[in-house]
């Protein structure tokens, strides 16, 4: 990214989401705050159950009825500079916001496409709902399909089942950009696809981003994909963002024990024989979370203070790298020892 940061398009402040369950309240997302800048790709990484998908659903206000979202706001800045708080939107305002300002690409490409209508009809329906004519929509869609390296004529005529998994994922990517949104949220878009298909989706995404300059919130458990496409990486644990910062800071100068443990559990192809370690234990109970730092039961750096005191999110480096860890100095030293830039 440049030295002068781009304007903020989405500002999330103190967002919490809880689900109602028989045993009590499940705190799935806990006081999450972050800023998404224009043209930035933010990767949210974490294991299953860390709250990343709930956070995603909260950002598009599509949470199930049993969930309750609260917080200071999800402030969106329109292209003309107007600002609005998504938490106060009614259904009509939300419908207008989705696709036109912020669109989504979900994991299961087959489930996201209506199986009984052609791709072209999906294009026209979506465009019509936002007041765009058929001819204009067709022209935009043809251009986008070409940009995702598909044969536009053929794809427009096709039903979803006539396309391969990789093609469908690229169709979704193209459709998500139909109304030129400022933000695209992607939930595990390259999970469950083959290696070469994943490669072509990543390449297409990078190229589209360069040409159209939209922001991306990328949700994934795959550290390697995040390393490749993210400008900013946020690690989530037990519903909280425990570390967030520029991609190189988070990967090479990790300041949270959980981030470092995750990195030390992921094999790298080019690294020869590796000493890897799993994270012991299991993800915490979100109804009765552990005291202090929620990671302390599984943490190799744990001290007494971690067991009792919740670590605050503190800014490091030039203020862009934040981490909530009491033992950040020791974590950083360990990160230095094992993860230097392009180490052999």
């Amino acid at each position, binding site marked *: 990214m440049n030295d002068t940061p781009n304007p903020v398009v989405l500002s999330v402040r103190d967002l919490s989401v809880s689900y109602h369950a028989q045993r009590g309240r499940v705190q799935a997302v806990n006081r999450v705050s972050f800023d998404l800048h224009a043209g930035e790709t933010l990767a949210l990484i974490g*294991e*299953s159950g860390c709250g990343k998908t709930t956070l995603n659903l909260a950002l598009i206000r599509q949470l199930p009825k049993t969930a309750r979202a609260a917080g200071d706001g999800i402030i969106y800045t329109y292209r003309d500079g107007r600002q609005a708080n998504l938490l106060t939107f009614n259904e009509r305002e939300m419908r207008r916001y989705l696709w036109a300002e912020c669109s989504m690409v979900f994991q299961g490409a087959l489930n996201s496409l209506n199986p009984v209508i052609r791709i072209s009809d999906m294009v026209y329906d979506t465009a019509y709902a936002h007041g765009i004519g058929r001819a204009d929509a067709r022209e935009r869609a043809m251009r986008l399909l070409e940009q995702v*390296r598909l044969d536009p004529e053929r794809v427009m005529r096709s039903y979803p089942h006539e396309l*391969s998994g*990789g093609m469908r994922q690229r169709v979704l990517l193209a459709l998500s950009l139909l109304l030129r949104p400022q933000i695209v949220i992607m939930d595990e878009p390259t999970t469950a696809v*083959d*290696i*070469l*298909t*994943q*490669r*072509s989706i*990543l*390449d297409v995404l990078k190229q589209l981003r360069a040409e159209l300059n939209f922001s991306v919130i990328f949700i994934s*458990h*795959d*550290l*390697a*994909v*995040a*390393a*490749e496409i993210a400008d900013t990486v946020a690690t989530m644990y037990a519903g909280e963002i425990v570390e967030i910062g520029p*991609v*190189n800071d988070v*990967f*090479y100068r990790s300041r949270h024990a959980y981030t470092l*443990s*995750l*990195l030390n*559990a*992921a*094999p*790298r*192809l*080019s690294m*020869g*024989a*590796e000493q*890897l*370690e*799993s*994270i*012991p234990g*299991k993800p915490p109970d979100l109804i009765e979370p552990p005291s202090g730092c929620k990671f302390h039961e599984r943490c190799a750096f744990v001290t007494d203070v971690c067991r009792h005191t919740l670590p605050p999110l503190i800014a490091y480096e030039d203020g862009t790298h934040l981490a909530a860890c009491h033992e950040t100095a020791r974590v950083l030293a360990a990160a230095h020892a094992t*993860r230097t*830039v*392009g180490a052999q």
Partner: protein
Amino acid sequence: MTPIIELRGVHRSFVKDRQPIPVLQDINLSIEPNEIICLVGESGCGKTTTGKIIAGLLEPSSGELLFEGRPVASYSRAEQTKIRRQHQLVHQDPFASLNPAHTIGDILGFPLKRHQMVEGSAGLRRRIWELLTMVDLTPPGDIVNKFPHQLSGGQRQRVSIARALTVQPRLIVADEAVSMVDVSIRISLLKMLHELRARLGLTMVFITHDLALAKYFAWEGRIAVMYLGRIVEIGRTQDIIAAPAHPYTRALLAAVPEADPERTRHKQMLTLRSDDIPKLTDIPPGCAFHPRCPYHVPGLCDAAIPALAAVPGFAQQTACLPLQQGMTLVATDASGDTHAR
């Protein structure tokens, strides 16, 4: 050493809509006792079918299967059954592969009783305890009376492995056995498999689409890369990862992102001529990869099917005619420029 199992010219096809689909073609694979071999490739390459043939769950359509150097047919019925039992499969999905209505004790107990592996209820109990301890599900007393839904994905996969061990196998086929568990606990499962292999002298056939995982697990073993029903490259993991020879292997290795921002962003990519995988019902003539291969040589690659053979400059075996003939691979890209590699 005599291979524990050997596949010679194995073909396998399935019939769909009265049309035969050749899923495996001319597979030659010999597996040594106590080795680790990884079958890697994309979906539809035949790695699971190969695993099932090794585990005795599928018969080859043609070709020969040898146990301990002797053809299967030369063994008696009873001996064949015994051999089958020595080869066990661990499935991918620990949510689907364990009966939800049975306790963990039952799940492990059934095969032990069925195959008369233990004597009396005290022996049964002791063996179940032993198996659970072997897969680090301790204390076993907390686990035996639980149902699968009360365990996490990682714990369930440990139960699957313990179940495979009930019949004291010599070979285990692990088909994507860690793909469904979280990244943070995969390594502990793989380490456990390594330990079991060393302790029990097991042979491991590990099937995965994840090359980084294959590299980690089979670092001391071998990798076989499969494409459209054939093995296109096979050799020591360290040789293949350091210097892949077959253009398909090169493309795969180049395409994998790495959890290292600087490295992954500066990786040298290999652009294929086409992103589309041909259908198994319509496999291209000659080398099946030639329509996508940036290095293909017209008149050579589309004319004859390459067999696995040594190629100059590489330690592994590769099914690529230009390499076997000592040619330098030359890529033709869209602009018509050529680059020597």
